[in-house]
Structure formats: structure tokens, C-alpha cells
């Protein structure tokens, strides 16, 4: 191999044959880095669509009464927004993009365990996405049930529920395959010497997430299939006119969908655990506690689903049990926050953009998390159930937690993925715009919810107008901020300066190889017998050069 460093953008492995066409080289590539970027572009296209749908909904709610869209379209709009954001964006989100890209790099592996399966996951994801989009344009249009598909309405409505359900099933299958791939990779392909407790914490987040994907997704998959069978054949399992129990569907849906919330947040927490020590130039406080708490959240998160159904008919005893278990999830989460803040304590923090996003998330996620405890209390929730309070809560947790940390991770690993650096000034300004817009958009909803504004309503009473007006104004600021941020990143990718292998002085293995990495990542695999995040006097302790060397090519 020549001395000129060739990156994964220049050469790749494909699943079959040698393609001349650049596009074929991408969509048939089995290189985990390329698959990550495939996910990235498709996912953010859908993200853009869902954001626009949400903006239309907010615009409609700007003043009372019907302005732009009719009530049925509104029902379809919030379903579309939910289905895209949950199944197409945030569930695959961090694992499929950043996880795919970074897991082998952080473990010191040349690829994931099953590269072909990895590509298959992306194709399944595309099939699911196309199914969901197609249903927009045929028959009565997209499902209008909300993304939860509660029976019996999902059995009776005339819209294309079957399409949306099948799409969700296939997307779930793609997610399961990714989970299998990651668990096998983490068990088998760690660099020699790297024990479980020497893995970077992002990997720990992915590990817990993958187990949720493997064990919880099948339950919702089969439940969705049963709703499909209910609609096509009338098997009666969720149909009360045939003795079936619709609440059973709610249980089976949330057995998956509540752990899915932790599936989203755990890798995001992993990103925070990478960024905090890097920009504090300190070993992370409580490495083991953070690692174990990920697994604990995944474990306890399995047993809390009933808190979605306090008002659907549960016995008083089971409500109390679910409520107590839900409170318990806050303990490992609190451990993580404690550890991050303890890491920041007395550090000379470098407030670069990734760190800004992370600290911003600490603010918004604390609000999202603590309001979660409020709605987990049975008595309060009976009052707040299905109000804007809940909407604000989960947007603070998911958007202000998962997506913000995803943005943090995108800025943090941007130089590794592209080899270039974005403009720091614009990137940090974009953060402030989005942060302000976000709080303007969602905080009024807490108040509106407490005053009794129900969610998923197309219209509202005049006394709620002020809160809706502020929220809609906030949505514009938020959208502008998103455009600003993506423009900055795009310009960085096109015109940015070369970043070099390790612009942040970070310690984990992905920073020891050139940016962007070459095909199969490592020239030589290191022997890892040290902890991640080892800093001494603000400098990384271990510096390795693992790039391709003469006579060491693996091709």
C-alpha cells in the first residue's frame, strides 16, 4: 500500500461483486462505517419530514379554530410525526448511526461480527420506511391512531393502519438484527486485553441497548402482527365484541415501548460519558458505577410499563407496584448524573460545542426526567394523563435528552467521520439558538398541561391561547436553529479544515487512527490493558499510532 492514506470513502468491501458505480458501492457496502452513513442520511431526511409535519401542527395550533388543516389531517399528522420520530428516527438513531460507526473503532475491531447482516438491517430499514411513506398516498392515507395503535380504534379506522403496522414490524426486525450484531461484536471482537470493564462507556450504553432490542422488540413485533391479523381475519384477540381485551394490547405494546425509551437514552448517556471526561481532561468519576447503572436501567426498565395505563383499568395494587418500580429507575440515572458532575468538579472545562450540547442536555434532561417522576405518581398522573404536561415531559426527555446528546455526539465525532472540522463559533451559536427555541417551545406546554390542555386535540379553549402562541413561536426559533446547525455541519464537511486524528486530545481507540479511518479501521490491533479516559495533567496517558503500516495491510 502506498504511503498516501486511503480512507473508507475511497475503498470498500461490498456484499457481492465489484461495482464501478459509486452509488452501488455505497448501498451494497458491508463496511460498518459506510452503513452508518447510509443510516445517517436516510434518518435525517425522515427527521426533516417529521419536523416539518410538527411545524405544520404547531402552526395550526397558533390560534384556536381551524386554520390550515382539517381535524382528520391533524390526527394523521401527529401519527405520522410519532411513527417517523419513534420508529424511523430515534429508535434506530444513535445505535445505527454513531453505534455502527464507532462500536468497532472503540473496541479495536475491524468490523462488526456480521457485516452482511448489518447491511441487511439497513435494507430492512429502507423497506419499512418505504412502506410507511407509501401508505401516505393510497386509500384514506396514513394511519390516524397515534403511534401507539391502541385497539379497538386501530381495528376499526379506515386509514392504512396495516401499512403503518407492517412498517413498524419490519423496522423492529431491523432493530433486532442490529442488536444481535452488536452483542455478538462486543462479546467476540474486543481487542485483546480489553475486558468488559475496560470498554469505553459508549460501548456499555450500546450493550445494554442491544439487549433491550433483542428481548423487547419481538414482543411488540408479534403484538403488531396480531393487530394486522385482527384487521384482516378478525381473530378477536384485541376485539372486545369477540371477548378480546384491548388493554392487553396496551400492555404488550408498552412491554416493548417503555424499555424502548431506555433503548433510546442509554447510548445517549454513553455519548455524555465520552464527552465529559474528554473536555474535562480528567478520568471519569465512577467508571464502574456508570457502566453498571446502564445495565440496571435496562433491567429495571423492563418492569415499569404499567405506568402508561394508570387510567386504562389496572388494579390499585399493580398501579402502586409499577409506580414504585418507576421511581427506582431514577436511582441509576441519578448515579450517572452524579458521576458526570463529579467529573466536572474542579476540572478546567473546555466549553467546545460537544460539551455545550452535553451540559445543555443536563439541564433539559433533568427537567424531562424529574417531570417523569411526577407523572409516575399514580394520583398526580390520573390528573395529568393525556395532557400537554406529558407531551412536554417526553419531549424534554427524548428531544432534550436523546436528540441533544445525539447532536453532541455528531459534533464530537464529526472530525473522525469526515476528517474535517466545523466552524466552532457558528456551531456553538447554533446550540444556543436551538436551546432557547427548545425551551420556548416545550416549557409553556407544562403549564398548559397543568391547566388542563389535553394532548392530540386539534382545537383548544381560548384560555390556552397564550401558551400555544409562545410554543409556536418557539417552534420557529427551534427550526431556524436546526437549519443553522445543519448548515454549519455541512459547510464544515465541504470546506472545513483538516482535523487530524485526535483534535480533542481524547483517549479512546478511535482517536488513535487517522480521520477518516481506513477500511478495516486498524493497521495493527493494540493490546489494551488500561482503562479508557486515562488523563494525567490534562494529557492522555496512552498515545498509540495504529494506522496502516508497510507490510501490515490486511487486504
Amino acid at each position, binding site marked *: 500500500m502506498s504511503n498516501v492514506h486511503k480512507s473508507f470513502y475511497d475503498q470498500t*468491501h461490498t456484499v457481492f461483486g465489484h461495482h464501478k458505480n459509486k452509488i452501488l458501492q455505497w448501498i451494497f457496502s*458491508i463496511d460498518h462505517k459506510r452503513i452508518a452513513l447510509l443510516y445517517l442520511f436516510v434518518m435525517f431526511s425522515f427527521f426533516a419530514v417529521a419536523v416539518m409535519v410538527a411545524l405544520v401542527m404547531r402552526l395550526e395550533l397558533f390560534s384556536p379554530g381551524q386554520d390550515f388543516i382539517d381535524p382528520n389531517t391533524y390526527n394523521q399528522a401527529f401519527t405520522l410525526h410519532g411513527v417517523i420520530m419513534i420508529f424511523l428516527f430515534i429508535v434506530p438513531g444513535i445505535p445505527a448511526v454513531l453505534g455502527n460507526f464507532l462500536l468497532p473503532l472503540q473496541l479495536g*475491531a*475491524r*468490523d*462488526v*461480527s*456480521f*457485516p452482511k*447482516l448489518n447491511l441487511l438491517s439497513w435494507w430492512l430499514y429502507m423497506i419499512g420506511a418505504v412502506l410507511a411513506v407509501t401508505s401516505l398516498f393510497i386509500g384514506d392515507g396514513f394511519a390516524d391512531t397515534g403511534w401507539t395503535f391502541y385497539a379497538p380504534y386501530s381495528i376499526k379506522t379506515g386509514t392504512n393502519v396495516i401499512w403503518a403496522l407492517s412498517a413498524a414490524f419490519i423496522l423492529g426486525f431491523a432493530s*433486532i438484527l442490529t*442488536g*444481535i*450484531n452488536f*452483542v*455478538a*461484536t462486543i*462479546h*467476540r*471482537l474486543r*481487542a*485483546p*486485553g480489553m475486558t468488559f470493564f475496560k470498554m469505553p462507556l459508549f460501548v456499555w450504553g450500546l450493550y445494554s441497548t442491544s439487549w433491550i432490542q*433483542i*428481548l*423487547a*422488540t*419481538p*414482543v411488540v*413485533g*408479534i*403484538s403488531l402482527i*396480531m393487530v394486522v*391479523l385482527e384487521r384482516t*381475519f*378478525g*381473530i*378477536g*384477540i384485541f376485539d372486545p365484541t*369477540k*371477548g*378480546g*381485551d384491548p388493554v*392487553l394490547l396496551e400492555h*404488550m405494546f408498552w*412491554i416493548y415501548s417503555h424499555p424502548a425509551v431506555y433503548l433510546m437514552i442509554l447510548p445517549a448517556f454513553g455519548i455524555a460519558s465520552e464527552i465529559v471526561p474528554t473536555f474535562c481532561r480528567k478520568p471519569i468519576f465512577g467508571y464502574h458505577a456508570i457502566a453498571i447503572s446502564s445495565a440496571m436501567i435496562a433491567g429495571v426498565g423492563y418492569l415499569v410499563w404499567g405506568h402508561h395505563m394508570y387510567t386504562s383499568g389496572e388494579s390499585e395494587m399493580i398501579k402502586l407496584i409499577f409506580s414504585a418500580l418507576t421511581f427506582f429507575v431514577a436511582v441509576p440515572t441519578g448515579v450517572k448524573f452524579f458521576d458526570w458532575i463529579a467529573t466536572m468538579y474542579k476540572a478546567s472545562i473546555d466549553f467546545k460545542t460537544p460539551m455545550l450540547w452535553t451540559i445543555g442536555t443536563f439541564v433539559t434532561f433533568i427537567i424531562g426526567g424529574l417531570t417523569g417522576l411526577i407523572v409516575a405518581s399514580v394520583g398526580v398522573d390520573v390528573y395529568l394523563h393525556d395532557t400537554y404536561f406529558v407531551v412536554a415531559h417526553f419531549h424534554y426527555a427524548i428531544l432534550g435528552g436523546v436528540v441533544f446528546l445525539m447532536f453532541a455526539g455528531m459534533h464530537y465525532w464529526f472530525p473522525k467521520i469526515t476528517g474535517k472540522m466545523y466552524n466552532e463559533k457558528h456551531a456553538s451559536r447554533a446550540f444556543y439558538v436551538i436551546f432557547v427555541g427548545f425551551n420556548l417551545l416545550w416549557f409553556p406546554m407544562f403549564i398548559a398541561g397543568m391547566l388542563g390542555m389535553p394532548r392530540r386535540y386539534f382545537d383548544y379553549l381560548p384560555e390556552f391561547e397564550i401558551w400555544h402562541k409562545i410554543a409556536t413561536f418557539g417552534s420557529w426559533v427551534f427550526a431556524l436553529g436546526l437549519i443553522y446547525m445543519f448548515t454549519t455541519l455541512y459547510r464544515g464537511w465541504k470546506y472545513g479544515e483538516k482535523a487530524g486524528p485526535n483534535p480533542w486530545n481524547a483517549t479512546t481507540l478511535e482517536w488513535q487512527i487517522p480521520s477518516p479511518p481506513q477500511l478495516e479501521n486498524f493497521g*495493527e*490491533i*493494540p*493490546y489494551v*490493558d488500561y482503562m479508557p479516559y486515562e488523563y494525567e495533567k490534562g494529557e492522555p496517558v496512552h498515545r498509540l499510532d495504529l494506522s496502516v503500516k508497510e507490510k501490515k495491510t*490486511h*487486504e
Partner: protein
Amino acid sequence: MSNAISNEPEIVYDKQGNPHEVVDFNNDYEGAKLGFWLFIFTEIMIFGAMFLVFGFYLFQFSQDFMDASNELNRLLGGINTFILLISALTMGLSLVKLRNNQVNESKKYIWITIILATIFLTIKYFEWSHEIHLGIYPGSPTLNAMEHGTKLFFGLYFTMTGLHGLHIIIGIGVMFWVLALIHSGKVNSTDFVVLENTALYWDLVHLVWVFVFPIFYLIY
């Protein structure tokens, strides 16, 4: 994938100079088995969820379920159980033969497994068409006029045996694929993990039936 994989395992050395082998992701027997076991877990969760639904309604409509169970043909169900039991044995034998490098024997046992699986499906077909002939299928007017518990029993019966039958069909397809791989020599006495995983899958399909059979046929 690169064809020029070196046969030498890659070695790295720690500070004391001890050698450690790097796992080659292209050729990782343990990884392939681990991955398939994880897939088996997801299958267990899928069928587990269905058993959960069954249990939920069994306790609500015990009498209806027992009466409906009496409608099913226990002899045919029993024969099918026996057939799957034998097929699990032949599947396992084909793996043993392949590992002993008796390629033709191994292929023969896979063929026997395929035939047994087809017989299973045929018997299942007769059972289903008997019920459908009587007007008992999900959404039928006859069934809708019956008790709630009966409707749910047959709804679950067709769903669960259908899902199981789908797994049998997929299994037959996989076995044909494995036969082709053995024929081309890609699966052989040293590289047999594909056949091993197929056998694992077949054991799962068989085990699921071992639970499906009693809960539908034997609760009377």
C-alpha cells in the same frame, strides 16, 4: 469480502511479550453461534408473548377453552408431534455425519428431515381444512355466533399454529439452502456452523410445538 485472508492468525503482544490472538471477524465460529443463540432468544420472546396471551384468555374462559379443545383431532396432533420429534433426530444426525465427513449421509438425513417437515405440513393442512370446512375460522359467521371463549380459542389456534407453520416453511427453505452449500463444499466437515445453526433452529421449531400441542390439544 476479501478473498485474500491470510491463514495465519493475527497476534498482538502485551507489555510482557505474551502473545494474544486477535479474533478474525470473517471467520469466527463462536461468534456465529452466539449470534444465532441471540436470534433464538428473540424467537422465544415472540412465542412467549403468544403463550402469555393464551394464558391470559385461558384463565378468563377456562370452560370455553376446554370445550373448544375437544374439537381438535388429538390423534393427528399427536402424530405430528411424533413426526417433529423424529425430524429433530434426523437433523441432528445430519450434523453428526457431516462432522464425520460423511457428506452424502449428511445430505440424506437433511432430505429425510425435509420430507418429515412436509408430512407435518400436510397433516396440518388437513386439520385446518377440516375446521374451515366446518365453518370454523377467524371471522366466519359460524364462529362469530359461538361463545367468546371459543372465538378466542380458535383465533389463537390459527394464529399460533400458523406462525409455527410459517417457521416450518422457512426451515424447509433454509434446509434446501444448506443442501446447496454442502453440495458446493462451502459447508463441510471443518466449517459446519451453518448446519449447526440450522439444527439449532429446527430444535426451536420442534420445542415450540412441544408446548403448542398440549395447550391446544390436551387441555380438555
